[in-house]
């Protein structure tokens, strides 16, 4: 099924590295309300892309900040 474009959130972050064991991977991967997520670690803006039916941009920013990373929504 095609993803509803309104459920996709895009953020600029400073998540420059991802590993299977790190906090970001674990938290986002285990979050019940996150359907899909990815970080483009090769990009200068380390763009985080989240697909969620229920979360808001503000909630996602809070989650990322609490993991010790900067996060700013891109429009």
């Amino acid at each position, binding site marked *: 099924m095609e993803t509803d*474009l309104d459920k996709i959130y895009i953020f600029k972050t400073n998540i420059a590295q991802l590993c299977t064991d790190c906090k970001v991977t674990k938290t986002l991967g285990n979050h019940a309300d996150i359907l899909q997520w990815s970080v*483009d670690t*090769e990009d200068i*803006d380390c*763009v985080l*892309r989240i697909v969620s039916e229920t979360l808001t941009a503000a909630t996602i920013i809070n989650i990322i900040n609490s993991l010790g990373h900067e996060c700013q929504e891109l429009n």
Partner: protein
Amino acid sequence: MRVRDIDKEKLVIANAIELIVQDGFQGFSMNKLAKACNISVATLYIYYKDKDDLIKKIGADIAIEFFSYTIENFSPDMTFEDGLWIQWQNRAAFTFKYPKKVAFFEVIKQSPHADDILNSTTKFSDFREIMKQFIYNALEKKELVELQFEVFWSIAYGPLYTLLNFHNDGKSMGGKPFKLTQDMMKEAFRGVIKALKP
């Protein structure tokens, strides 16, 4: 509400092809692409997860387009000579019509994504099956000598792609100006048939 904008997607695809052909796979970035399209980086990420995702999706679309094009008016039941000639015609027509897409595919072939792209849909295995059947039929009908696959392929298509490369470069050996004609294609094709007929 966000609406899928087909025109914008087409613009993104056209610019991505242009940039990758120009700068290569390594020199390409989502930021450069967004700038070239005059759209925000965020818009780009709505459609694609990252650079790899974008390249895989565009690559798969082009591959499907190419393979569909090559089997137009073609059937594996044709005689070997008729069928191979249609393949030549279709492959040449695609290269003439979409030189950028062909160049893009050449770049992608060298990238780590080539296998992912070719395994992304069953359409490619359908295509491979058709071509396999064509060769099998030709062998059964004794219209084709038995050769190792790579040897067969290089004789059957090598001359065509060499001529198409000359044509795309606009020059042949030693920088001699070159333009491929139907007559030249036929001449080369006759040589190929001579080599492949039992």
